[in-house]
């Protein structure tokens, strides 16, 4: 027994040792321990991807020389339906291309500025140790290219952005992206990785005002964005561009916040982050609902999808999601898993503090209706209970109504003339002049949209059989037909 445990123990030790994350109370040693020596092997051309895609893991275990070639392009693109904006981009997209290297890599960075750019640009990568993060060495005029080299000493997920004056304007126009510096052992494997970056945008026109919109410096200084968006445009990650995944998969999101101003309260509706590397750092937190991503910062979150559906990525400063566009969708396909999430099971009336002990009558009627042997007496009993919760407020418990205001239900000639009026009025409401028992009333009875068909039937049956009314019954089917014909009640409120 003991002998077979030893190899297991060895494997466990190995698995937890080199290459994996350090124990929570240990540290990686930072940049002092991040230099793994000179690059080995042939120089590698970095694979850059456009959002929302992420390059594959480097799969390296030795430091390499990586060549990154990134072009700045100023281009007009849609920011919302029917609204265009001149974006300044790294690699033609907002956010810019995703760069993936490994800690200890020597990166030879080439920045090109397209010849028809109006502006000079440069780049500051937060993963660079050195002046300006590279900005001091990459100031590039239109139609030129510049180059500088740095060693990635610290692992993590880092923002890069243009740092040409006025920096705020360059960032606000979309000049940001992410560079992932993998830890030496690589990122733990998952089934899907996606790239999402939030940014705030400032236009002179209002939200969704059509046409070409210029940048508004005053709004940017006052930090009043017009749009708050994921990946540079409204709808960039919705509809047929939603992120795709399957139930049972482990998904990782690399999420950045380019700003320029706002901090993001990042949340995925319907999911919990099993692990979050807050601020892109080394030691994950577990079981997090909403994580803060600073402007100029990033975070990595892993979660497993158990239930199919559309999961909405939002900035939980919620007006940004629904009134400024900070909304994206992750669509998970797969079989239902009712044990985890059932969907709506019950939709009943809730009486709140009016719930009386004889609510039993309602349940009994419901059970009988299901069984198919609902009697008039059961309807009356249930109707009585329901009446006192809803109708008695105006019509009184004894059906007398309120003189001059609410007509009586007791011995009502209005009801006697046509008992069907009862469910009709309950469903459709009644406004205006009506004469009941010789007295004119001119009031408003709102449609009781919260009542279901069987509730309407039961209450009506109770009223018909009370206080000298002619008797009879209204069935659920009759109530349903009346609702279908009624212009107001045809839409069930629930």
């Amino acid at each position, binding site marked *: 027994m003991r002998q077979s445990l030893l190899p297991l123990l060895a494997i466990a030790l190995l698995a937890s040792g080199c290459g994996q994350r350090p124990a929570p109370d240990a540290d990686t040693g930072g940049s002092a321990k991040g230099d793994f020596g000179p690059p080995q092997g042939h120089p590698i051309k970095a694979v850059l991807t456009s959002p929302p895609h992420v390059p594959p893991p480097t799969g390296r275990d030795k430091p390499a020389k990586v060549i990154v070639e990134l072009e700045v392009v100023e281009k007009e693109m849609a920011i919302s339906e029917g609204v265009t904006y001149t974006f300044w981009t790294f690699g033609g997209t907002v956010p810019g291309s995703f760069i993936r290297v490994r800690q200890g890599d020597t990166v030879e960075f080439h920045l090109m500025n397209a010849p028809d750019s109006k502006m000079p640009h440069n780049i500051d990568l937060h993963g660079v140790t050195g002046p300006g993060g590279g900005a001091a060495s990459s100031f590039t005029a239109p139609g030129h290219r510049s180059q500088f080299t740095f060693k990635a000493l610290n692992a993590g997920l880092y923002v890069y952005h243009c740092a040409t004056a006025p920096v705020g304007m360059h960032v606000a126009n979309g000049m940001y992206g992410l560079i992932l510096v993998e830890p030496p052992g690589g990122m733990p494997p998952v089934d899907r990785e996606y790239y999402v970056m939030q940014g705030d945008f400032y236009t002179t026109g209002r939200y969704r005002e059509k046409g070409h919109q210029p940048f508004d410096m*005053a709004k940017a200084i006052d930090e009043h964005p017009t749009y708050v968006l994921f990946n540079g445009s409204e709808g960039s990650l919705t509809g047929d561009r939603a992120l795709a995944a399957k139930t049972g998969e482990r998904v990782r999101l690399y999420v950045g916040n380019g700003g320029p101003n706002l901090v993001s309260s990042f949340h995925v509706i319907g999911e919990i982050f099993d692990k979050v590397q807050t601020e892109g750092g080394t030691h994950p937190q577990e079981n997090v609902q909403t994580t803060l991503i600073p402007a100029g910062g990033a975070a990595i979150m892993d979660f497993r999808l158990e239930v199919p559906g559309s999961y909405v990525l939002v900035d939980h400063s919620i007006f940004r999601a629904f009134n400024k566009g900070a909304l994206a969708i992750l669509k998970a396909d797969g079989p239902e898993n009712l044990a985890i999430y059932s969907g709506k099971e019950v939709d009943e009336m809730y009486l709140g503090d009016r719930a009386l002990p004889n609510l039993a009558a309602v349940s009994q009627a419901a059970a009988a209706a299901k069984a198919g042997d609902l009697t008039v007496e059961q309807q009356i009993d249930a109707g009585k209970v329901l009446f006192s919760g809803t109708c008695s407020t105006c019509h009184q418990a004894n059906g007398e109504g309120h003189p001059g205001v609410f007509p009586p239900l007791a011995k009502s000639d209005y009801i006697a003339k046509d008992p069907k009026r009862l469910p009709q009025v309950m469903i459709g409401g009644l406004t205006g002049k009506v004469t009941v028992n010789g007295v004119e009333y001119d009031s408003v009875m709102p449609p009781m949209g919260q009542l279901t068909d069987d509730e309407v039937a039961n209450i009506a049956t109770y009223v018909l059989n009370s206080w000298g009314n002619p008797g009879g019954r209204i069935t659920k089917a009759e109530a349903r037909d009346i609702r279908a014909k009624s212009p107001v009640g045809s839409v069930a409120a629930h």
Partner: protein
Amino acid sequence: MARRAAVLLALLPLCGQAAPPGDRYVTVPGGAFRSALRYEDAADGTTVAPYRLMRRPVTNAEFLAFVRAHPEWQRGRAAVVLAEPRYLSQWSGPLSLGDARPDQPVTWVSWFAAAAYCAAQSARLPTWTEWEYAAAADETRRDAREDPAWRERILSWYAQPSTGALRAVGGQPPNVYGVQGLHGLVWEWVDDASALLVSADNREQGAADKLRFCGAAALSTDDRENYATLMRVALLSSVQAADATGNLGFRCAKDLP
């Protein structure tokens, strides 16, 4: 025949330009001026002496006439150390405009080419201060820089991508001095573009790396909100004297006689 030729000859210089009313230059009266840049040696501003400035930027037609008269400045013959390989690349040939319109501001010209053009007119490039001074004006005021509308107008040009064709000169209303197109058309060379000593990382505003610029920190802006000027400085500080871009043209200035 000879008379017709003489008349046409007289008109030749005017071909390709909408004839400006009268003089090609206006006189810009001098005055006290506070630059948007923080000059350590001129903390309270300077006084700009009066000077003459071209109403409009130099056009393709005007530059074509220049290279005809000065063949050493034709595309393909100008030394690459004086004009980079893309010099006048928007023209179809060294002496033909092709799709480039005669009334568009000439671009893809280097500082050396622009300076040579002005020298041939017995003129010179304006200094940065002269340019900034004239550009501070709008249609009615000599210094409109406090007006957010002035700034917004300029920033909205920065917001337009370069994919459309350049507009013709003269389409914009003249400012209070009678000068047109200082904003919203093209960047413009100035004589002392290389005097804009800014650090490549513009965030280091005022950082005292005195060694780099011999005794002075890099220029920083006095008025951080004057982004319009900041961006112009950024562009000019990013180009070398032999460089050219599709958005960089020029106009000439003259001292007063």
